[in-house]
């Protein structure tokens, strides 16, 4: 993270130990290792998670420490492993199911939406599903329409699920610990393009509570609400805007469900303008929900309509020149922010 004016709140239960630099991928791996050591009921199941360590190599080394009984290579059966995860979670385990690409959750949707999300409610609160499904989002990896989508809106829509979207190694670690220790099904989306992103994490154990947004950069003129992959875009835009003397505040909700409405609304009330940036499809997406929350809660403070920037409503194309058109860029954010601030 190259932005000097970051004021990440690194909230309440933050670790205070020695800080060190890791990549987001390393942060995920060491979090999983720490939780596997801490709790014998935690296990990881998915396609190519053991010796292969996934195509992203995020899990490399885990099978060597924890063995094939806990780091389990599965058949290519997203519905089956998700369903097995639900049942194992209901009966004493804390499964972490790895769905390699977020695009594949379509295969597992009944297990996630009709089983995992509803078991606790349908049983009148008797049964619990402490399940984590880790998956990925994000385009621009040149993997075309079926390996590039950001589908977190689908699951954010469903009562009973929690949805986490880390944007830094620090957040990834704290949010993943919370996810694993939570008694509810959590869908944990990692931006596959951010695994090499570096950031500081403390040595000691810490968690980040769900439903607590983080102000990644403080500002006064416009609020940029950004999720996951779009946080870095928003921070880059904020740098560009600073050069134009526009002070942008970057707010990262970190979880879409539960959602920290208060922080979003308070920021928009303070700055009087807001843009919501998310890599999911713009139509009926996360940007729509967050924009509605801000419009509803900050209406009388706003000097401009709340604007949205999401992925273009097209299947993600393969050709790089086409794909690059489909996701929001720092330049697009900057341009829109200038317009909202009357600086055309």
């Amino acid at each position, binding site marked *: 993270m190259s932005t000097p004016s970051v004021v990440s709140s690194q909230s309440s239960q933050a670790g205070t130990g020695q800080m060190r630099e890791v990549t987001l991928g390393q942060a995920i791996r060491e979090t999983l290792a720490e939780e596997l050591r801490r709790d014998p009921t935690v296990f990881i199941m998915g396609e190519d998670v053991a010796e292969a360590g996934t195509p992203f190599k995020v899990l490399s080394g885990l099978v060597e420490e924890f063995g094939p009984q806990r780091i389990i290579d599965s058949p290519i*059966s997203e519905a089956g492993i998700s*369903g097995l995860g639900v049942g*194992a979670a209901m009966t004493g*385990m804390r499964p972490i199911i790895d769905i390699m690409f977020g695009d594949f959750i379509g295969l597992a949707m*009944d297990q996630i939406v009709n*089983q995992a999300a509803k078991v606790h409610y349908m049983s*009148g609160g008797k049964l619990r599903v402490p399940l984590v499904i880790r998956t990925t989002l994000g385009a621009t990896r040149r993997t075309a329409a079926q390996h590039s989508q950001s589908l977190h809106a689908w699951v954010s829509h469903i009562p009973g699920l929690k949805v986490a979207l880390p944007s830094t190694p620090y957040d990834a670690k704290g949010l993943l610990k919370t996810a694993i220790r939570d008694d509810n099904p959590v869908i944990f989306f990692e931006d596959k393009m951010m695994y090499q992103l570096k950031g500081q994490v403390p040595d000691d154990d810490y968690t980040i509570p769900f439903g607590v947004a983080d102000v990644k950069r403080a500002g006064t003129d416009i609020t940029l609400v950004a999720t996951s992959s779009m946080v870095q875009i928003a921070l880059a835009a904020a740098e560009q805007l600073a050069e134009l003397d526009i002070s942008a505040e970057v707010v990262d909700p970190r979880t879409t469900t539960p959602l920290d409405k208060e922080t979003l609304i308070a920021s928009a009330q303070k700055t009087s303008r807001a843009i919501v940036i998310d890599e999911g499809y713009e139509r009926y997406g996360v940007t729509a929900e967050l924009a509605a929350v801000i419009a509803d809660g900050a209406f009388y403070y706003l000097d401009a309509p709340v604007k949205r920037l999401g992925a273009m409503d097209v299947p993600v194309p393969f050709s790089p020149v086409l794909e690059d058109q489909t996701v929001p860029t720092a330049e697009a954010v900057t341009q829109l922010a200038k317009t909202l601030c009357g600086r055309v």
Partner: protein
Amino acid sequence: MTQTKAPREQSAQQRAADVREGAEQWMLAYRLMLRIRFFEEQVNDLYRTARMPGLAHLYSGEEAVAVGVCQALRPDDYITSTHRGHGHCLAKGASIDRMFAELLGKEPGYCRGKGGSMHIADQETGNLGANAIVGGSAGIATGAAFSSKMLGTGQVAVCFFGDGALGQGVLYEVMNMASLWKLPILYVCENNLYNEYTHNAETTAGSMLARAQAFNIEAEEIDGQDVRLVYATAQRLVERARRGDGPGFLLANTYRFHGHHVGDIQRTYYRSKEEEEYWKAERDPITILGNWLLEEHVADAAQLERIRSEAQEEVTAGVEFGLNAPFPEISEVTEHVYA
């Protein structure tokens, strides 16, 4: 797919010993099957008299499968059930009164009225829940078997489903894993011939049993109307799974006496009245066991009649409890979304 296995020929002496030894169990099986039958008939009555919201899928006619399989289980063994699940819940030990309360959306119901007929779950009897998605609980049951193996608890999971679930891909995904990892699970396919309103001859190609055999799962096809045969077969497959020898698949041929659900009354377009009458007259699992109990002198007619009236009284008391029970507080609507 019509082959069924008859109990092996036995010596008269051996048979008499088996009868004596099993007498108590078969009397209990008789009672449990009647309890389910009267429960379901009561549900049908509640529906027809507009005292029950929603709908229900009745298990009448299939009682021997649930009772025979559950008699082969430990109290802490797991089951998952289906939309046609009242029989499984009762056979695994659920109480009639709390079942009725749930069906009526009442607060003392097993799920505080939030699940209803198609979602009854009862942790205390190992029932991980009925499921209104056909084949929807296959993953859950397999996951429960996975937990048992990981935690070394010795528990077995039973996954009940109908022949309709053979059309669902997830079932094959989890059967593959169960066999790969030798999970302690028994898949019980209740073949009642119909996928809702369509005969399975129109929906299901090839052999049902071979589907499981292809995964190297120990598979048996039996007459699901003979509770003693269901028990004996389930017992063997369950203990085999418990020993760590891998999953089993039990194909039980049976018949639902009612329609797909309580409102499915006009059904001659998909099955004949003659077929229904044949199964009710000749293949009723309660009659089959009752006749055997009489023939083997395990019980006399008066004893059976007494069990019958006691079961009826239990159901009558249970429905009264349910009807008189309070609805949940309105504030409960937002409770239990998250743990």
